[in-house]
């Protein structure tokens, strides 16, 4: 049974279902974001991509690379 987490990207907030025991890195794979290009906050704290997710978690994705 999957769990639901919230994702914040800029001003956009969305809900996504992930497999139980998924990590932030798994979530990045699922939504097609290269972990090398972002920083993440888990429930308002800067977190490594190996952190495991639980239902109701909020993951904020912050772009780490500049455009141009």
């Amino acid at each position, binding site marked *: 049974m999957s769990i639901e987490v919230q994702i914040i990207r800029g001003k956009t907030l969305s809900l996504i279902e992930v497999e139980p025991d998924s990590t932030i890195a798994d979530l990045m794979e699922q939504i097609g974001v290269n972990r*090398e290009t972002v920083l993440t906050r888990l429930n308002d704290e800067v977190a490594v991509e*190996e*952190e495991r997710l639980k239902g109701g978690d909020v993951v904020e994705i*912050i772009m780490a690379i500049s455009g141009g």
Partner: protein
Amino acid sequence: MRCVKCKEKAVYHRRYSGQMLCKEHFLEYFERKVRKNIRKIGIKRGDSIGIGLSGGKDSMSTLQMLWKSSKKIGFELTCIGVDEGIDGYREETLAVAKAFTGELDVPFEVVSFKETYGRTLDEMADNGNACTYCGVLRRRLLNEKARKLGMDKLATGHNLDDEVQAVMMNYLRGDVERLIRLGNPISGDGFVGRIKPLSEMPEKEVALYSLLTNLGSSSSECPYSQSFRSTTRDFINQLEKANPGIKFSVMRGYEKLSPHLKSYSRSELLKCSNCGEPSSQEVCNACKILKTLSKK
């Protein structure tokens, strides 16, 4: 996940070394490595160092690190901002830059395309050439201003990713002259030598440093995108994801190759026959662009 050094909560997984680091140990590692690079660059007591400051994370981190070193070594800093005239973008980033220089009590001079070249980048840009125009004209303006201010060196915020992208782009384009110049920068009359204190730091680490130290750097994106650089950047980041540390491998390989390439270089530092600025060609690229624009 816990820090390998103190067991506090980890904020960074340095995948190329396999280590998890907490905030304190990440900042300690980052600043130690940048200080080492600053020492290697050879800034001396009494030097005047210019910094190209945009307000983005790279140049703001460069300023923060050079400011800290300037207190220990004893050199002077002056920041130079370039207002290219990009509506809805540059005003915000320069305001951020100005606020930070005010906090650190570092002089901040702003030069603009409009005042120097008679038109903004927005007015120049068409046919997707904005990044070419901007790169050439901004470099010239920075050099000119740094020279007029009597700077001994001009620091830029280039990070490891920027350096790797430059090497790869020149390889892919077959532009051997530029590839040689990357590792053997031109120097001489009228040209203020460049230094890149963040050149050993991956962009992700610079972004984390900026975030953890609340630098307040602007995260605005320039509306002009450079598609070939973006494609190269994405390609390198895909490789890095699968092979952590490959960005360092590219640079170490290039550094080994670079001395052997030097003898193949045809370029030497000349003076532009039109404007007198240092150039590797008889007429500099800035004058060529300005001539093209004057016909429009």
